[in-house]
C-alpha cells in the first residue's frame, strides 16, 4: 500500500510542524488535517455546504504530502474514484453533505460488497432535499445505516468537537483498514463550522493500522471473517465485483449458498466487532434515575444542561455515544438499566431515539429539534426537570 511516499521523512517533518501547539480552526479543517495524519493519499470530492472547507483544506494539504486531491464532476464520480483509488493502494476519502450523501449510496453499497476500505465524511445539514443548505441537522443518522440497498452493516462515528474531528478521523481510517469496510464520519454543520482549539499529536505517536495484503494462497473475498486485500498491480489477477461472488472474487449469482455465505459474513464482520468498535462516553451518576443521551453537536448543550441540573442538586446520567453504528446497544442498555427516564435530544425527529428504545426498558423521551437551530441547554434542562424529582 502506498501509505506515504515519504522518502526523506518530509511528511513527518511537515506534520511535526503542526503538532504541539494550539490551533484555532473549524471542525472541517480539523477533520481534513486529521485525515492527513491518518495517511490519506487520495481525496475525491465535490463542493457542498457545509463540507466544502474539507475539500479546500485537502486541496491545499495533499500535494504537500504527495497525495492527490481531485475535484470531480459530481459526488457519484467522487465516491467511485475513491473506491478505485483504494484498490490501487490509496487510503482514500471523500466529504459531502446530505444531498451528496444520497447520491453516493449506490457506491457505498459497492464498497460494502467489495470490502473496500474508505472514509466518507457526511457533514449533516438540514433536509430533506435541499432543505436549509447552510444550517446544521442530524437527519442522516438512519441513512448512514440503511441508505444503500440490501443487507449490510456500516461503521459510523460522530464527533462532538473540533478536536474530536481530528482525533476520530484517524480512528475512521484505522477502522476502515481493520475491518475492510467503508466508514462514515457523521459530522454535522454545527461542529463542522465551529472554531475551537485543536491540538495535533506528534506524528510519531500516531499508530496507523496497516492494510493487510493477501499472501499467496489466501483468498481476498472470503476464507476468514476479515480477508486480506490484494491491490491492483501485484500480479494477483484480482477480480473485484459488486455482484455476489465467491471467495476468489469470481461472480456467482446462481448459487444460493454462495450469496448466503458472503452476505452473512459481511454482516458478521461488523456485527462481531460491535463491542470492540463501540465507544460511549459515559458520565453516570450513582442513584440517577434520569439520563440524557446525546451525540454530535447536540452533546454540547446536553452536557451543559446536565451540569446545570447537577448544580441544582439533581442526579443525572449523561451518555454520549461516539460510535453511532454499529449501535453500542450493550453499553447503552447497561448505562440505562437503573434509569427511569432517558431524554434524547437530537437535531432530527427522533432517529437515534428509536434505536435506543429497542434496547432500554426505561421511558425514552425524544427531544427532536429541526429548523437548523441547535438545542439550548435551557431547553434540555427543562426536559430534565419536567419529569419531577
Amino acid at each position: 500500500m502506498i501509505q506515504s511516499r515519504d522518502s526523506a521523512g518530509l511528511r513527518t517533518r511537515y506534520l511535526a510542524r503542526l503538532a504541539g501547539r494550539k490551533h484555532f480552526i473549524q471542525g472541517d479543517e480539523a477533520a481534513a488535517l486529521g485525515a492527513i495524519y491518518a495517511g490519506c493519499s487520495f481525496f475525491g470530492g465535490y463542493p457542498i455546504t457545509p463540507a466544502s472547507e474539507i475539500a479546500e483544506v485537502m486541496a491545499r494539504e495533499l500535494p504537500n504530502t504527495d497525495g492527490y486531491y481531485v475535484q470531480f464532476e459530481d459526488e457519484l464520480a467522487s465516491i467511485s474514484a475513491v473506491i478505485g483509488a483504494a484498490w490501487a493502494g490509496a487510503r482514500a476519502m471523500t466529504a459531502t453533505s446530505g444531498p451528496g450523501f444520497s447520491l453516493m449510496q449506490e457506491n457505498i453499497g459497492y464498497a460494502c460488497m467489495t470490502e473496500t476500505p474508505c472514509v466518507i465524511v457526511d457533514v449533516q445539514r438540514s433536509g430533506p432535499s435541499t432543505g436549509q443548505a447552510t444550517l446544521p441537522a442530524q437527519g442522516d443518522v438512519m441513512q448512514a445505516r440503511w441508505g444503500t440497498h440490501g443487507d449490510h452493516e456500516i461503521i459510523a462515528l460522530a464527533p462532538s468537537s473540533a478536536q474530536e474531528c481530528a482525533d476520530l478521523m484517524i480512528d475512521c481510517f484505522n477502522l476502515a483498514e481493520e475491518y475492510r469496510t467503508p466508514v462514515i464520519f457523521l459530522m454535522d454543520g454545527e461542529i463542522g463550522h465551529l472554531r475551537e482549539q485543536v491540538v495535533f499529536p506528534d506524528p510519531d505517536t500516531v499508530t496507523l493500522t496497516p492494510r493487510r495484503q493477501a499472501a499467496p494462497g489466501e483468498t481476498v473475498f472470503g476464507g476468514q471473517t476479515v480477508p486480506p486485500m490484494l491491490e491492483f498491480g501485484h500480479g494477483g489477477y484480482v477480480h473485484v465485483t459488486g455482484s455476489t461472488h465467491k471467495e476468489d472474487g469470481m461472480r456467482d449469482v446462481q448459487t444460493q449458498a454462495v450469496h448466503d455465505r458472503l452476505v452473512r459474513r459481511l454482516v458478521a464482520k461488523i456485527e462481531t466487532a460491535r463491542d470492540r468498535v463501540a465507544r460511549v462516553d459515559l458520565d453516570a451518576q450513582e442513584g440517577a434515575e434520569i439520563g440524557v443521551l446525546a451525540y454530535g453537536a447536540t452533546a454540547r448543550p446536553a452536557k451543559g444542561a446536565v451540569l446545570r441540573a447537577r448544580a441544582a442538586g439533581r442526579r443525572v446520567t449523561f451518555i454520549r455515544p461516539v460510535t453511532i453504528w454499529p449501535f453500542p446497544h450493550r453499553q447503552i442498555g447497561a448505562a440505562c438499566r437503573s434509569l427511569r427516564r432517558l431524554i434524547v435530544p437530537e437535531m432530527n425527529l427522533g432517529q437515534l431515539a428509536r434505536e435506543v428504545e429497542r434496547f432500554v426498558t426505561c421511558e425514552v423521551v425524544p427531544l427532536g429539534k429541526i429548523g437548523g437551530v441547535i438545542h439550548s441547554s435551557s431547553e434540555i434542562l427543562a426536559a430534565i426537570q419536567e419529569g419531577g424529582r
Partner: protein
Amino acid sequence: MSLRELNDPEYFDAWAAAVAPADRPPPDPEYGTRDPLAGLLDADLTAGVDTGPAQHRLLPYLRRAILPTTFCVGCGGGTVLNAFTHAVDEMGLDPRQMVCVTGIGCSSWIPSPYFLCDTLHTTHGRAVAFANGVKIMRPDLKVIVIAGDGDLAGIGGNHLIHAARRNIDLAVFLVNNFIYGMTGGQVSPTTPFGVRTTTTPYRNVEHPFRIADVVAAAGGNYVARWTTYHPFQLMESMQHAIAKKGFSFIEIVSQCPVSYGKMTNMSDPVRILEYFRDVAIHVEAARGMSEDELEGRIVVGKLVERDRREFGAGLRELNRERREALGAELAPDAAPEAAGEGVEDR
C-alpha cells in the same frame, strides 16, 4: 399447443407427462446448493483442458475454463474480446500491468471474467469514474475501460465527457450495439431514429448521439470509431489507444443479434455485420460530405488525434513543486526532496 393451453396447469401437466421420458429422474433436492464452477477457477486455468495438438496461442490470456462465453451466438462482444486480446499480445503487454474496469451490461462482461488481469467490475455508468481513481494512484499500470453504449453514453455520459476533458491517461472502449442488451433490448442513447425496441415498441422518436464525435469535442488525445466488421483495423486502433498517453477513446460498433435484432428483423449476426460493411465509410472518404449525405452511414477511422498533456502528469508536477518548496521551507540546508516515483512524464 396454444398459449392458453400452455397456461392451464392441468393441461400442461398432462402434456409434460406425455412428452417426458418415463425414467426422468426426480427433482433435485439440492438445487441451488452446489457450485457449478467449483474447482474450475484455480490458478492453472488450462489444466485438464485438452484442445488437441494445436492450441489457440491467445488462450493463456484468458480464463479458458469458463469458455465459450455466455454471450449470445454471434455477439460482437466476443469479437471485441478477440481483437483486444490480439492487441495486447501484439503489443507485448504484461497483463499483470493492466487493470480492466467495466460497468454493467453485456459489453462490461467482455474482459470480466474472461480476460486474465486485475479487474474492477463496477456499478452502472461509473466505470470511467472508478478508473480515474485507479489511474491516478497507479499511473504505471495500463487502465482500460470497456463498457457499452447504455452504460458509458447514457447513465455514465457525464463521467465520460469529463474524463475526456481532463485528458486522463485511460483507454476507453465503448461497445455500441445501439441497445440496452442485457436487460432485454430497451432503447439507448445511440439507438437510431425510428427503430423499434422494447421501450419504443412503435418507433424511436429520439435522435441518437454520435458518441465518438461528442467525446472528440469534449477533449481527449485520440478518438476513433470502428466496427466489429473491421477487426484488424479495430485491433490496431486499440493498440494505438492503449499506447497513447492521454485520454483515448474508441467507439466500437457491434452486433447484438438477440436484443437489438429481435425487433428490427436482424436476428442473424451475419446480416448485421453485412449492414456494417455496407454503411461504413472511412473518415477520409466522408470528408466534405454533408450531414444529410452521411445520414445512416457509420463513419469509421481516426476522428481526432491530439498531443495534449495528460492529467496525471499535471498532478504529479504540482506535487513535485510543492514538496520541493516544502523541503526548502522545513530544512533550508537539507538536500532537495527526491522526485516522485519513477513515472515518465512529458
